[in-house]
């Protein structure tokens, strides 16, 4: 499944989507960056409450397919700028990480 399809199916808000054609392989949810660094893998959807620019750095390093900021939390201007610049897909959902993770799992993203 592509990032584009996930956006449509879950009605995610697109903050930046420079690479909507990226393939989604799995998912990871977490807000402690050292944990995410070790556990998130290439092609994952990363669900987090963190909306600052260090998230973009971690997304880039782990190679996740997209970052999804949950619970409609605020995303910092610098994070958006950096995501655009570095080509990181930055999405947002009003659902909680728990709810969103459940939906993604149901869609077959495991």
């Amino acid at each position, binding site marked *: 499944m592509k990032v584009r399809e996930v956006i449509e199916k879950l009605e995610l808000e697109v903050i930046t989507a420079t690479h909507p054609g990226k393939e989604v392989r799995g998912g990871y949810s977490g*807000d*402690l*960056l*050292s*944990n*995410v*660094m*070790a556990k998130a893998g*290439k092609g994952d959807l990363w669900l*987090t409450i*963190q909306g*600052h*620019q*260090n*998230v973009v*750095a*971690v997304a*880039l*390093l*782990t190679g996740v397919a997209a970052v999804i900021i949950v619970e409609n939390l605020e995303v910092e201007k*610098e994070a958006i700028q950096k995501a655009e610049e*570095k080509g990181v897909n930055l999405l947002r959902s009003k659902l909680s990480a728990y709810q969103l993770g459940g939906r993604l799992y149901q869609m077959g993203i495991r």
Partner: protein
Amino acid sequence: MKEKYILEKRIEKGDFNKGGEASSKLKDLLRKLGVDSAVIRKTAIVTYELEMNIIIHSEGGWIRAAISREGIQIFAADDGPGIADLEKAFQPGYSTASDQVREMGFGAGLGLVNIKNYSDELKVDTKTGVGTKIRAIIHLV
């Protein structure tokens, strides 16, 4: 023989803006060199944690990297304050990070654990009041 660095980058204290730049740059370099992706992933994790620790916990320092027959070598050197209790620092969950830094998702006390887990060789030299020097090697498979 003097090391020839493929990366040499000054890291400033508190410079969260640039957090991850050294590791991203190294990752790109290694990708261009055709290094195995598992090796790149390990290198990225180790370099990122070293880099963030300099930004968060030190007075500033340097990240350097070199490739040799042994593998990818990453050097972190900072201007202090040093790590008073190394054994404690390597314990999962131990962190002296401020609340402000924790709010951004740092301070889980897992950075050094990651560095240890994802490097094949690790050497730490630290002196209170002087600084910390860490050398990590990731073997090429």
